[in-house]
Structure formats: structure tokens, C-alpha cells
């Protein structure tokens, strides 16, 4: 009798274990299908559901919140999808939230994504219709890709034609192989360098004058009170600065030009561009040179004026004597 009771206990244990495992697995399976727990319905309408069926997952910002309950055809262009959403989500889903359709993974099931609208619209109630966003489906993607491919084909065809034309035009090639252009450029840059050297020499001269002044050669007080001298000196410095600036600019532009030319020649394109650059270059070079000329001229004038100033006359005379 006692043995039989123990057997019944074992049997009960066995059956209970089976039942528990079954209930557990049913719960685990049912957890995602919203069979347990309270939920509410939201609706959304699509033109094409791309194979969405009841039981597919619904996600809110990527979080599993419910499943598709039913897919119903309203008319030949409209399909209504009812979604069962966990009641806990009621405080997050708004009326203007956007529903879009996508695929779980590359080849997975269809899923619906609810994206928050973030526009402060009221919370969605049971049975509300949410807004849809046309999603990119693989089909559409392929369609667009097809169009792009066609465009690329057209473009490449035209490119081919252009290249052929360039290859056939001898004038362009001549321009590219022209050797006088770099020579001229080299000459121009040489003169600029010369001008700059001149300017440098002038600055050096000024420097010595000022040093001499500081050393007390001549009357320091009168120099300082003589506004004319101060003005002249100022002018001279400014002119020198200008010259330097112009020279700098010029060098930079020249550099750019040679770089541009180099790359143009290397890539074998834009001989026309080079010509264009050439004309502006010439004008700019001319401008620069004339500017430098003007600057040096002004400096010379200033120097002359300084020489004739009575205060410095003696100094200059002494300078000439020393030279002799």
C-alpha cells in the first residue's frame, strides 16, 4: 500500500513536470504573440502589404510591442492592417506616429515599424488609424537601381564620344605640347624675384638709416619733431610693404598656375582651361610688375626728399664721402 502511494507521488511529479514544461513553453511562445496580457488595437492602411500576414511583429522604435492581428482588403487600392499592441505602450504611441513596413533581416519576415512623430500629437486610442510612410521595398530599390543604371549607361556613352572628339582634335594636343608658355612664365617669375630683391635692398637701406638715427647721428629731437620727415618715412615703409605684398601675391598665383598647369597636363584634360588661365596670368603679371614699378618709384622719390632735407643733408653728404 505504501509502495503504491510512493508510486503515485512519482507519477504526480512526472505529470506535473510535463505540465509545467508545457505551460512554460506555451507561455514563451505566446509571449510574443500577445496571447497573454492586455492589449489594444491600432490600424494602419497600405496600398501594398508585400506579404504581411497576421502574426507578423510590430515594433516601436525597434522594440517588440505587438503583432499584426488581421489584414483586410478595403478596396482594390487599400488594405487595412489591424495591429495588437501591448497596453503598456499606450502612453508612448501618438496619433501622428508613422508606421512603415520593412523586413526582419535580409530574408526574414515582414515587420511593421512605428516611428515616433515627436510632434506632440495626442496619444493614440484603441482603434485609431496611424499614418503610413512609404517604405523602401526591395522591389522599389531594384527599380531605382535600374533607372540609375540606365542613366549611367547614357552618361558613359556621351563621355566616350567626348573622349573620342578630344583624341581626334590636333589643336588641343598642340596647345598641350606648347613649350614657349612655360618659358615665358619662367621669365616672368624671374623678373618678379628681381623686383623683390630690389625691395629687400631698399628695406635694408632704411634699416641702416634708422639704426644710424638711433645711434644719435644727427639731431634726434629735430627728427622727431619734423613731421615732414616722419610722413616721408611712413610713406616709404608703406610702399615697401605694398611691394612685398604684391610680390607675395604674385608668387602665390604663379605657384597656383604652375600647379594647375601641371595637373592639367598630367590628367590630359582642359587645354582650353590652360589657355584661359594664361590670358589672366599675363594681365595679372603685367599688373604686378607695374605695381612694383610704382612702388619703387615712390620709394625713390621719398629717398630724394630725404636727401634734400636740411637735417639729413649732412648725413647723406658724409655717406657719399665715405663711399668715395
Amino acid at each position, binding site marked *: 500500500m505504501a509502495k*503504491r502511494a510512493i*508510486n*503515485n507521488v*512519482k*507519477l504526480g511529479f*512526472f*505529470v506535473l*513536470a*510535463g*505540465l509545467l*514544461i*508545457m505551460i512554460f*513553453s*506555451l507561455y*514563451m*511562445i*505566446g*509571449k*510574443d*504573440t500577445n*496571447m497573454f496580457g492586455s492589449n489594444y488595437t491600432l490600424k494602419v492602411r497600405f496600398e501594398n502589404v508585400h506579404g504581411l500576414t497576421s*502574426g507578423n511583429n510590430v515594433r516601436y522604435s525597434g522594440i517588440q510591442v505587438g503583432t499584426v492581428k488581421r489584414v483586410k482588403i478595403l478596396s482594390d487600392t487599400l488594405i487595412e492592417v489591424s495591429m495588437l499592441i501591448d497596453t503598456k505602450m499606450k502612453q508612448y504611441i501618438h496619433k501622428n506616429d508613422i508606421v512603415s513596413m520593412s523586413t526582419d533581416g535580409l530574408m526574414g519576415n515582414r515587420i511593421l515599424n512605428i516611428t515616433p512623430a515627436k510632434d506632440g500629437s495626442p496619444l493614440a486610442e484603441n482603434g485609431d488609424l496611424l499614418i503610413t510612410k512609404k517604405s523602401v521595398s526591395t522591389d522599389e530599390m531594384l527599380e531605382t537601381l535600374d533607372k540609375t543604371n540606365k542613366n549611367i549607361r547614357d552618361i558613359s556613352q556621351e563621355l566616350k564620344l567626348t573622349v573620342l572628339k578630344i583624341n581626334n582634335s590636333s589643336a588641343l594636343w598642340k596647345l598641350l605640347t606648347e613649350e614657349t608658355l612655360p618659358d615665358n612664365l619662367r621669365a616672368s617669375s624671374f623678373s618678379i624675384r628681381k623686383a623683390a630683391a630690389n625691395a629687400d635692398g631698399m628695406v635694408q637701406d632704411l634699416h641702416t638709416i634708422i639704426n644710424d638715427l638711433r645711434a644719435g647721428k644727427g639731431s634726434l629731437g629735430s627728427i622727431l619733431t619734423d613731421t615732414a620727415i616722419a610722413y616721408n618715412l611712413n610713406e616709404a615703409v608703406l610702399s615697401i610693404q605694398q611691394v612685398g605684398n604684391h610680390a607675395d601675391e604674385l608668387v602665390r598665383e604663379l605657384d597656383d598656375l604652375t600647379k594647375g598647369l601641371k595637373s592639367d597636363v598630367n590628367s590630359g584634360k582642359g587645354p582650353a582651361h590652360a589657355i584661359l588661365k594664361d590670358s589672366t596670368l599675363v594681365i595679372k603679371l603685367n599688373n604686378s610688375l607695374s605695381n612694383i614699378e610704382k612702388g619703387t618709384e615712390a620709394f625713390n622719390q621719398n629717398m630724394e626728399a630725404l636727401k634734400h632735407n636740411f637735417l639729413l643733408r649732412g648725413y647723406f653728404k658724409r655717406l657719399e664721402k665715405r663711399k668715395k
Partner: protein
Amino acid sequence: MPLPPTWQQFLDEAGGLSRFTGRFFSQGFKPRYEITELLRQCYIIGYKSLPLVGLTGFIMGLVLTMQLRPSLISYGAESQLPAMVGIAVVREIGPVITALIFAGKIGSSIGAELGSMKVTEQIDAMEVSGTNPFKYLVVTRVMAATLMLPVLVILSDAISLYGSYLGINIKGVISMDLYFKQVFDALSFDDFVPAFIKTYFFGFAVGMVGCFKGFNSSKGTEGVGRSANSAVVVSSVLIFILDLLAVQITDILGLN
């Protein structure tokens, strides 16, 4: 029109089994109910089969995982291993393998037990002792087999999945949490419920055939052996036929 003897024998057998099943339904649900004996049989048929069923289930899960692994790796879908094993075990392998093992163990033991009881007049003795042997022996055993096989299948499924979990961890690494999450994510009620329902029919078939063969055992020890043997053969074949039917029915009902 005379039928060939083998056909006649087959039809005789089928008719006999049908009548026996009919008798089960006409007598099985009327009082008196043999509750104590039913519990005893549940213990013998269910609880005592657990080690065998558990062992085969465990090995099945382990082997299935290790066999599937190379081909899944060649598809780059190694991470799908839990999902695939889970579906295979729950939908088909768990119920059918367990039912076959069950047929081998329980079908033969019922066939032999009732056969020997028939031969040694124990069945007659029961009737004389104021017991309906059909109710006392057949109904309890068939009920026990019908009720216990689903429980065994569930436990075997669980053990199988655990075996598979270990199988994955032999060559790879997966946490228990992630493994069972993937398994249950892959499963739906459509996988679980039809597979579960069909196990009742498997259990019923095993019990019914075992009892039929034993109850109609011919005299002599050879008859006992033969009824045990044919109980296993017939119930195993019936399990496959029922499985075929089950898949057709779930297909028609759109549960696949």
C-alpha cells in the same frame, strides 16, 4: 470474389482492431472506472518509460545538432542552429521518435503482458472475480498510454533541446538564455499545438494495438511472443500513418 489469403488476413486484422477500438469507446467511458489501476498503469507506462525516452531524446538532440552544423556553416547560417533544431524537434522528431521508442517499450510489454495473461487464463480469472477485464486491463492501459505519451513527448522535447544546447556548445559557444530565446522565437503555436495533439493519437494507437494483440493472443508461449512482436510492428507503422494524416490535416487547416 475470393480475396488472396494475405489480404483476407489483413482485412480480418483491420476489422478486428476496429471492433476492438469500438468496444473501447462503448465501454471505456461507462462506470465503473478503474482509477487505481489507471494510476498504476500511468506510473508503469509513463514514469518508467522516462529514462529510456529521455536518453533517446537527449542523444537525438545532440546528434541532430552535430549533423546539421556542417551544412549550416557552409550556408553561413550557423546562428540558425537553435531555431532549426527547435523546429525539427518540436514538430516532428520529438513526437515521432518518442512514439516509436514508446511503441517498442510499451507496445511490446502490453502485448506480452496481456498475451501471457490470456494464455494463463488470468483474463478469465478476472472476469470470474467480478471484474470486467476489458475495462480493468484494456481501458486503463489505453488511457494511460494516451495520456502519458504527450507528457513523455514534452519531457523528451525539453531533454532533446538541452542535448542540442550541449551539442552547440561542443564546437561553438552559446548561452543558455540566448539558445532558448532563439528556439522559442522560432517556434509558434502552429508548430507546437498540432505536434502536441498528434501525440495523443500516437499514444492511443500504441495502447490500442498492444492491447488488441495481447487480448487476442493465440494459445501457447509462441502466441505471446508473436503478439508482442506484431504489437510493435503494427503500432510503429500506425504511428507513421497517423503522422502522415496529421501533416495532411494541419495542411488542410492551414496551420503549417
